[in-house]
């Protein structure tokens, strides 16, 4: 049944979450830990923190693409080796309270991991996952979702979306999966009115107006590719310290390393997050390194996200404008500014002094 969605009190949506927990689902939601906002599995809906909720320190990608995970177990028996696939948890998980940019980040992970050679581990977790997004009622200084095709109330990729309003919370199910998630509770909720949604739309437009960063055009992808040999990369890249924080906090960065960890009897082949900012990311065993210094590594990061990826994946950037890398870069590198500087082939502007 097509509805206008619902108008909920905070108590109502929290008790809905409580119900999901009781039904045995794993609920991952924003919480506050050591003064940081983080996504974490919760045991009670009361733990979920949505007040003054800016973006979490880490993106929620780790719940689909863990920081480190086993791909294979091996065990030695004389000259023989036995292999075993890791078991996968069948528990359903609800990712609750994701900002629309982080939901878009999951879409980029889908592009990478559910392509031609679909990753069985990611795919399994993705199937177990339902996404409840939380529209933004304000933007932070580093936010630029609208510059990369997003919006503070984008619904793409969400199964359910919750919209905070001054007096109430609006909720709508966007997919059959979302309908199913609210099925047990919706009968007790108050339907929202067309006026409620009109006001929500007004709120979205208001938030968008506060995002000042200018749009990055998808038509720039071929031009950016041509900047490969431009001196600007040397200039910008020299500032990069190669710490890798940008990749670790990024909701769409998906590069990984694979290593064996074990002892003389047995071990695990692990996959772990990695970053193109690291020296050894591309270093051959011979010592030859195609990206031997920081400038080509920084260029790789930017061009991958804004040129190579969109040219390959239907014009979507591999950046969702969450702003985490801007906030956390120790030397203030600003990917939005960099892209603009690169297409204008000029000197980097404000923010890059």
């Amino acid at each position, binding site marked *: 049944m097509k509805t206008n969605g619902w108008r909920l009190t905070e108590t109502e949506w929290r008790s809905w979450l409580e119900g999901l927990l009781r039904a045995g689902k794993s609920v991952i939601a924003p919480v506050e830990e050591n003064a940081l906002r983080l996504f974490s599995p919760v045991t009670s809906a009361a733990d979920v923190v949505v007040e003054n909720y800016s973006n979490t320190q880490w993106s929620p990608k780790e719940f689909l693409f863990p920081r480190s995970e086993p*791909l294979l177990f091996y065990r030695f028996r004389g000259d023989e080796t036995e292999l075993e696939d890791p078991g996968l948890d069948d528990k359903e998980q609800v990712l609750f309270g994701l900002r629309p940019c982080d939901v878009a980040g999951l879409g980029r992970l889908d592009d990478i*991991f559910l392509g031609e050679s679909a990753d*069985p581990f990611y795919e399994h977790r993705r199937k177990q996952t339902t996404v409840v997004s939380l529209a933004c009622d304000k933007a932070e200084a580093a936010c630029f979702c609208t510059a990369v095709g997003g919006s503070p109330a984008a619904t793409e990729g969400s199964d359910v979306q919750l919209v905070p309003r001054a007096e109430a919370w609006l909720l709508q199910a966007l997919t059959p999966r979302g309908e199913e998630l609210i099925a047990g509770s919706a009968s007790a909720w108050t339907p929202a009115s067309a006026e409620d949604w009109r006001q929500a739309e007004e709120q979205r437009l208001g938030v968008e107006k506060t995002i000042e960063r200018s749009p990055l055009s998808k038509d720039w992808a071929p031009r950016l590719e041509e900047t490969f*040999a431009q001196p600007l990369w040397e200039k910008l890249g020299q500032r990069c310290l190669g710490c890798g924080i940008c990749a670790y906090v990024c909701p769409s960065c998906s590069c990984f390393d694979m290593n064996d960890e074990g002892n003389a009897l047995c071990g695990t082949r692990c996959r772990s997050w990695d970053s193109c900012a690291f020296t050894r990311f591309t270093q051959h065993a011979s010592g030859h390194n*195609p990206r031997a210094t920081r400038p080509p590594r920084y260029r790789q990061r930017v061009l991958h996200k804004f040129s190579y990826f969109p*040219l390959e994946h239907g014009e979507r950037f591999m950046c969702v404008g969450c702003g985490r890398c801007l906030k956390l870069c120790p030397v203030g590198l600003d990917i939005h500014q960099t892209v603009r500087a690169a297409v204008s082939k000029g000197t980097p502007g404000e923010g890059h002094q």
Partner: protein
Amino acid sequence: MNGQRENLFRPQLMRIAQASEETPDVRTLRLEFRDGKAPPKFEWRTGQFGQFSVFGAGECVFTITNPPTRGGHIQCTFRQTGKVTSALRNLSLGQSVGFRGPYGNYFPMDDWRGRDLLFVGGGIGMAALHAPLQLALDRRADYGQILVLNGARTVADMVYKEEMKEWANTNGVTVVRTVDPGGETPDWDGEVGLIPNVFERLNPKPNGSIAITCGPPIMLRFMLLALEKLGFSPERVITTLENKMKCAVGQCGRCNVGRFFVCRDGPVVTAAQLKNLPADY
């Protein structure tokens, strides 16, 4: 995996059936399937590569050095350089290694029918030429004259010494061996000189022939210049890219040269393609 999709990263278990020393640090292994026969549907094309693993040390990319005409097993030639290759060298006959693949594109051997073939390899780069050369020898009538130029830093570093004798004894095949100046021994009867220079001295005429060349980056750079100078069309000059890889299925993000993912779009490239790629290899 609970009835899920097959684990992309689970290798086939192989047994080291034979090991031959090419040089003090290069070894060729013959790997047989642990269960004695290749799994159904296991096939590869000449020039494809695999991820070879030593459990406990990790995985390493090598080209499959035997062509499908010599199937039923897998062969690789590797130089002991890093962690995995050192561990691999420490394994004995009968011990287990992992193989996953084949991955990547391949040499368009069928398109080369009727043409002369020039194989120019430097050091361990020769390994990438081994499979297409053997295929051409196995289908000798399909191809014209074959030139093999195998170069190494020193006489001791020359790979496939024994096999070169066989190749040289095949009708229509010329084998030229060269070592870098200073790398020769008193009894050395091959050429002395850097590979691109020796190649230029040989002065082969392009005549529609295919030149396949592999070796260290610096040799490759000058080899491509030499080929261009001698009038070889860049579409008929073939090499392979060797970027670092982990997943081999286009996900881990490190083998790319611009938009070109070596694991998926390579490793085989023409000099014409290479000219259009950014200098990121």
